[in-house]
């Protein structure tokens, strides 16, 4: 019993000492996250108010034009080409590409623009034929871009985008495949400064290209899970 009471006593001591010590440490205000909004305090209550938050100059109008550059690594993918008179599909090699972006803000959050891109190293991981594999090809996608950005908090937004366009896949020594392409995706948009922004996103890109061999049309298409690392400037 005595031990128990001693323990209770020591526990109280510890709690009391801790509480007392904390009392002596003026709690530093938490980081600016909890800082109150800026308010102009009137040092002369009776005098007319000469400054207030409402007199802060109005924010400049939103910048409507956006120009950017993207790096497009695509790790997952499928390639279909005609081999021996049959369209054969296989896993795609890792491809990488670059994209441009130019868009115009129509209304708050909604943008219309273009996003052409070029993708290299278009080929099978393992060529599905005993004959020698052709060299890797290059895909050029001329895409339009429709995007909507949902602002989450200041400087951060989430966007969704649709990228319809026309695509060409060219391989050395063979005819180019052409056709419709559609990309869908989304990501995070971060304002680095008032003008500069950065994005990280992902999506899926589906091609409907085909090629004509001896008058017969064959599928010659690609499908990729796309990643998008980008940045740009607003005007």
């Amino acid at each position, binding site marked *: *019993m*005595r031990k*128990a*009471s*001693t323990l*209770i*006593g*020591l526990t*109280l*001591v*510890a709690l*009391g*000492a*801790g509480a*007392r*010590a*904390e009392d*002596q*440490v003026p*709690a*530093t205000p*938490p*980081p*600016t*996250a909890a800082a109150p909004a800026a308010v102009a305090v009137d040092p002369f209550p009776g005098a007319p108010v000469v400054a207030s938050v409402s007199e802060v100059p109005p924010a400049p109008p939103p910048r409507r034009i956006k120009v950017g550059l993207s790096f497009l*690594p695509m*790790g*997952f993918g499928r390639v279909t080409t005609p081999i021996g008179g049959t369209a054969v599909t296989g*896993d795609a090699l*890792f491809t990488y590409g670059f994209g441009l972006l130019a868009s115009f803000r129509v209304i708050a959050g909604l943008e219309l623009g273009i996003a052409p891109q070029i993708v290299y190293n278009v080929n099978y*991981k*393992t060529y599905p034929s005993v004959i020698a594999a052709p060299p890797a090809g290059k895909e050029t996608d001329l895409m339009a871009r429709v995007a909507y950005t949902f602002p989450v*908090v*200041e*400087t*951060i937004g989430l966007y969704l985008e649709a990228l319809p366009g026309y695509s060409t896949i060219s391989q050395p020594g063979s005819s180019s495949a052409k056709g419709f392409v559609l990309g869908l995706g989304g990501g*995070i948009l*971060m*304002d*680095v*400064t008032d003008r*500069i922004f*950065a994005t*990280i996103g*992902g999506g899926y890109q589906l091609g409907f290209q085909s090629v004509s061999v001896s008058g017969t049309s064959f599928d010659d298409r690609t499908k990729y899970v796309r*990643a998008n*690392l980008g*940045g740009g400037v607003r005007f």
Partner: protein
Amino acid sequence: MKTNARCAQTGLLTAFILLTGSIARAAGAGAPTEAPPTEAAPPPAATETPSPPSTVLIVPVQPNPAVASPAPAREATAVVGSIPPPPEPAVEAPPVTEIGVQRLPGSAYPEPQTRGLKYGSLWLTFHGLQWPYLPAKAGRDRFVIGLSGWGWLDTAYVKFAPWGQGGAAVNSDQVAYSTQQGRMLLRVTPTYSFADWFVQGQVELVGTENQTIQRSDVGGADTDDLWLRVGQWNKWDFQVGRFEGWEVFHLGMGLDQNTFERQGAVGPGDNTPPVISFYGLTDNEFRPSGAAGNLALHYYPLPFLRFEALGTVGSEGSGPVVATRPVGIIDFGWLKLKGGVEWQRKTGQAASDQTDITSKGVGGAIQFVFEPHIEFGLNAAQGTVVSIDNKGIKNAAGSYTRTSFGGFANVSNGSERHPLLFGVGGLFTRYVDQNDIAFPGVVDNYWLWQSFVAVQYVVFQQLYVKLVGGYSRSHFLLASTHPAASYDDEEYSVRLRFSFYF
């Protein structure tokens, strides 16, 4: 019943007396928890660390000369660099006037130059500084038990996709894993400071989420740091125990330790000797395993110049190990240069065991920080391993040259309220051994590419939430057959990490 009541009364009385005493003592101490500004006062950024204000539990010290502190006399430090004389007799030694249990505040991590973008990967690196920094205050001896730590929880998915002529390896590598793993450690740092001298110890007690791993497994250690050091603040110190050497390679916001993307596209079938992994002056950087430990001398000649001369001694695995790893850091804040060399030798334990493995390496890094929005860096290192087996015969497959180079970049919105960072990075590694057993001049040749994309948001400036997507590819050219067989492996991974630093 009466006895019980008396005991309770005694307990409450004891509590009341001690409580009153502790309050009086704490009040008399005069709010000792806030370090006064010193010449080496941390820049404003140091006070902006995510740690909340320090909380100090003052333990009352009864001024009893008979049990005076064994602390050396303060006068011992009157001459810089002098060796302190033996402690004075106990009855004359000044008592330790302040004892505290303290959650280490931001001021314990001063940064004479910026460490990196706030909340970013460089910012979470200590760049060779003497941390935790707990100097004596206002000329008074000080003993503080610092408490800090961190924990992380990863939920991850990884898929391997091999192809090529690897046969069994390709078949074995057709796997996918889904895991959740985590570690949390409590860091206890007792520190005795007087004048500008200090004696400091540190132990990191680790809890692991995965209860099936062994202590010797990656991430399975139940103790990370365990060291003692003595020295003068901002001048020099000597450290001994289990700890990490200074970082040279910086990998950015991905490739964290104990993760799939750190391992890269090296599946269960890729058990080539040696198993390829990145080399960044890393033979002796991480904490030694087994009955081995480090000794290090740290020297700070200028605020922007730091040196570490690290040595390793003991036994790792099957035999003795001895190593050295001197590293230097030039840190101007916006520009950081890091470089070093290392040498390690492992030998056999038994007299008849002729095992002799010698590894050497050199590496460096350059890092740029442009606050508050962007930081990036480049790394490069190369090393060799020469291996003699237990019979005294050269192990050609175990003798190789490894080369790694890569870089990273982080971008931040610079927001205090809603800090968001993007990070990217990549790293290429090549191993070329001397195993031309099947055809002269054709040796094993492996390479490994590791890359990632990361997004991190810090909730309430405390809880780090990071999503990392990784891609890795490896290529194996096996010279044990003629013609040499080759195959490739790919790894896709995604990982969500929650971490909390306290």
